[in-house]
């Protein structure tokens, strides 16, 4: 067997290399040769190919993502911005919060349980690597048509995987989304987000500095996971027959991850690490090159010291392995023993695999022979950047011209009633309890609000009641009609959801799910959505702190709807002031805040009743969103509202139904003067919410809205056990509940 050492590479400049099989373009391969001044070794080629992939290098999206920095609003809360494992914001009282959303779409289609489970595992390690204790997870999910047979395979598996992993880690699941649309049939979206909490002084960064510091790999043994492509290298470099089989799917071990969390937190508490990085995509290649390039010196790694699960792995494969539940820490020599001791306490395997050098190169050795000698930055950060061509698709105009206003509407109260039932029982609008009851929302004993509340909320300090809230939203239908506006609507909705619970929106993370960047139409959608999101964040004063891009989400030539998912993080000084969704007190007054216009493009009604997608999505007015949020937050702080629910897909009637069902109380509603009952019930105008105002607070609440210029219309009162829309229809709660709650179970069981 010949090892492709650096020396060997120098001596055999013309050796054929499988760069194309590894996904590199000719010019990319040429650039690697230029950087190194020779041909890369097999191990180097493996590292470059994976680190320069779309997934790791963001080569197609980078030029657009820059706007998040360029247009970032001035924000004192931002402690760590884009570029680290996750952003960090100041939430007061010395606490910092880190949060991020990531995708695990493709693996979840192949093996739903494990794909989703390892998706949770990955995002939790990102949060942990910042120095934080993970305190909650969220899971925005999208599946194909609810009644498609494959959805019965994918959805239960994904949900069981997210629950199986997150529940076992002891992380409350406090929010997320479940959306069905045929466009996700062959390509479900499994996004997962995590929040972590730490004190300011505990923030850790991924950097390797200080010559002589130890590089410690700890956690699971390294197996042949996720190295598909690189096996071609193994077969190139090894004379003996085919390499052993490599797993097509990664299996998560949540127990191992739980140990990793507790062990790492104990290590943080004793201040034993100088730098730390989780191992995710691209495994050791990514961790070592990122740590080294962020530090001041170089790094030397003895690859044969890496503990293996499969002894047949080649050095290239070890470098590329994406085995789960591993972390890499930089530790001062005199702290290494204590570090290893804590790992031993938690039954976590830990190995010194190298050290930081005063050189500038990342050098990797295999049984004493050098197989990698690269400038780490060239691997981690100097990947290719594409200015992919983009063009507004020619079908966009026709789509927007196909206005939902022309769709037939019910003319009678009975007709409205029937469509209300149809709406609230449709898969997208129906109760998601079948899914969310499989998630532990109570663990850690700090959950103040969880699904189906507008945002999840956890207490982070039991003494002061300081808390944080998070909501995630995205609407691919809106974004398909207009990606710029669609991205802003996702942001606005998430922002509104956080404010509705009484928390002040602070910062944003996103997961941008799109089709192939090689399709100019998709690239246009991506460019428009990122521009919309960046402009929106600037207007709302909530910076993007980090996120994730998932491209190539398509089946054959058909891309998914452009689906930017936006997570907004908020802070609340005293969680006892949180506002729930439930209408629970008879006699309280129901107010509709904001303006209702006739906006049905992309609406749930157009989808459910007519199977239609066309026209323009609702307009966005971010100044109005800010005002609405201020009113909701003030009203919560001053005890003027006992319940609030934002209006989004499904419009007023959907929100009203949810608040009534949650509280177990009915409502008597009057259609405001000048509004058509149908538009009043089904329009999806943004910037709106309904609130329950105790009678004693009505004057004060009205004065506040009046003084600040927010339209507030009294539309009814909490009462009885029916929802009655005066002169139109009456719907018993029991009938509504049956419609709302039976859909998902009957589709999936």
């Amino acid at each position, binding site marked *: 067997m010949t090892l492709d050492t650096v020396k060997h590479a120098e001596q055999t400049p013309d050796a054929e290399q499988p760069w194309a099989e590894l996904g590199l373009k000719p010019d990319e391969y040429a650039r690697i040769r230029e950087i190194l001044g020779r041909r890369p070794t097999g191990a180097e080629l493996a590292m470059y190919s994976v680190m320069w992939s779309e997934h790791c290098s963001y080569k197609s999206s980078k030029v657009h993502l820059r706007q998040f920095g360029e247009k970032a609003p001035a924000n004192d809360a931002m402690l760590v911005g884009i570029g680290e494992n996750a952003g960090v914001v100041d939430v007061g009282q010395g606490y910092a919060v880190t949060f991020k959303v990531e995708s695990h779409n493709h693996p979840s289609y192949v093996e739903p349980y494990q794909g989703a489970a390892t998706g949770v595992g990955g995002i939790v390690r990102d949060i942990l690597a910042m120095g934080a204790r993970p305190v909650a997870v969220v899971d925005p999910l999208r599946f194909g048509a609810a009644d498609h047979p494959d959805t019965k395979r994918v959805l239960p598996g994904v949900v069981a995987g997210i629950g199986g992993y997150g529940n076992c880690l002891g992380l409350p699941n406090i929010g997320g989304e479940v959306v069905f649309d045929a466009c996700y049939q062959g390509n479900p979206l499994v996004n997962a987000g995590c929040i972590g909490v730490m004190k300011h002084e505990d923030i850790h960064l991924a950097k390797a500095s200080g010559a002589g510091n130890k590089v410690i790999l700890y956690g699971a043994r390294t197996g042949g996971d996720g190295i598909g492509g690189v096996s071609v290298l193994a077969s190139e470099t090894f004379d003996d027959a085919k390499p052993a089989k*490599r*797993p097509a799917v990664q*299996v998560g071990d949540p127990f191992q991850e739980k140990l990793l969390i507790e062990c790492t937190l104990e290590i943080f508490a004793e201040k034993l690490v100088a730098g730390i990085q989780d191992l995710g995509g691209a495994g050791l290649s990514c961790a070592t090159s990122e740590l080294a390039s962020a530090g001041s010196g170089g790094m030397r790694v003895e690859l044969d010291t890496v503990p293996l699960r499969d002894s047949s792995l080649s050095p290239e494969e070890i470098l590329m392995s994406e085995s789960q539940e591993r972390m890499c820490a930089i530790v001062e020599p005199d702290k290494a023993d204590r570090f290893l001791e804590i790992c031993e306490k938690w039954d976590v395997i830990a190995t010194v695999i190298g050290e930081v050098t005063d050189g500038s190169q990342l050098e990797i050795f295999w049984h004493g022979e050098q197989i990698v000698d690269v400038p780490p930055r060239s691997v981690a950060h100097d990947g290719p950047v594409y200015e992919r061509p983009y063009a507004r698709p020619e079908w966009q105009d026709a789509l927007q011209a196909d206005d939902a206003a022309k769709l037939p509407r019910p003319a009678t109260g009975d007709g409205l009633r029937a469509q209300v039932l149809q709406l609230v029982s449709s898969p997208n609008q129906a109760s998601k309890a079948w899914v969310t009851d499989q998630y532990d929302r109570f663990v850690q004993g700090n959950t103040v609000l969880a699904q189906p509340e507008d945002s999840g909320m956890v207490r982070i300090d039991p003494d002061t009641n300081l808390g944080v809230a998070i909501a995630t939203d995205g609407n691919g239908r809106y974004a398909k009609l207009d990606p710029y506006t669609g991205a802003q609507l996702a942001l606005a909705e998430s922002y509104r959801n956080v404010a509705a619970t009484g928390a002040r929106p602070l910062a944003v993370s996103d997961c941008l799910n799109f089709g192939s960047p090689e399709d100019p139409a998709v690239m246009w959608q991506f460019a428009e959505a990122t521009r919309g999101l960046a402009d929106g964040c600037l207007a709302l004063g909530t910076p993007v702190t980090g996120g994730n891009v998932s491209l190539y989400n398509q089946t054959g030539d058909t891309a998914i709807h452009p689906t930017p998912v936006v997570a907004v993080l908020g802070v609340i000084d005293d969680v006892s002031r949180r506002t729930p969704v439930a209408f629970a007190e008879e006699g309280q007054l129901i107010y509709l805040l904001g303006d209702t216009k006739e906006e049905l493009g992309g609406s749930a009604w157009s989808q459910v009743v007519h199977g239609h997608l066309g026209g323009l999505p609702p307009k966005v007015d971010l100044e109005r969103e800010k005002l609405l949020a201020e009113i909701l937050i003030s009203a919560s702080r001053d005890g003027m509202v006992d319940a609030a629910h934002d209006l989004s897909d499904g419009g007023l009637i959907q929100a009203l139904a949810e608040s009534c069902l949650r509280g177990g109380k009915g409502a008597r509603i009057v259609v405001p003067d000048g509004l058509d009952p149908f538009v009043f019930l089904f329009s999806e105008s943004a910037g709106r919410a309904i609130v329950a105002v105790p009678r004693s607070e009505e004057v004060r609440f009205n004065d506040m809205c009046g003084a600040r210029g927010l339209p507030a219309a009294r539309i009814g009162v909490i009462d009885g056990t029916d929802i009655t829309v005066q002169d139109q229809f009456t719907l018993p709660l029991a009938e509504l509940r049956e419609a709302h709650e039976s859909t998902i179970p009957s589709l999936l069981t």
Partner: protein
Amino acid sequence: MARVVVDVMLKPEILDPQGQAVHRALPRLGFEGIADVRQGKRFELEVEGPLDDAALARIHEMAETFLANTVIEDFTVRVDS
């Protein structure tokens, strides 16, 4: 009635956290000398009618498409006697 057993095991290259946890616990319980443990599933099927080649072929297909997830698992079918 005939009994057919389908054994489903994770493929050797796939991580088996359960088997590992069992393996790691053994020394603590005083059991030495076990080099590895893998944990899988065993299905016992009671088959109506004659257990001819056609029936076995059907069970094989059932194992392949349903009882095992061949992305990560291998299986064997055998008649229990």
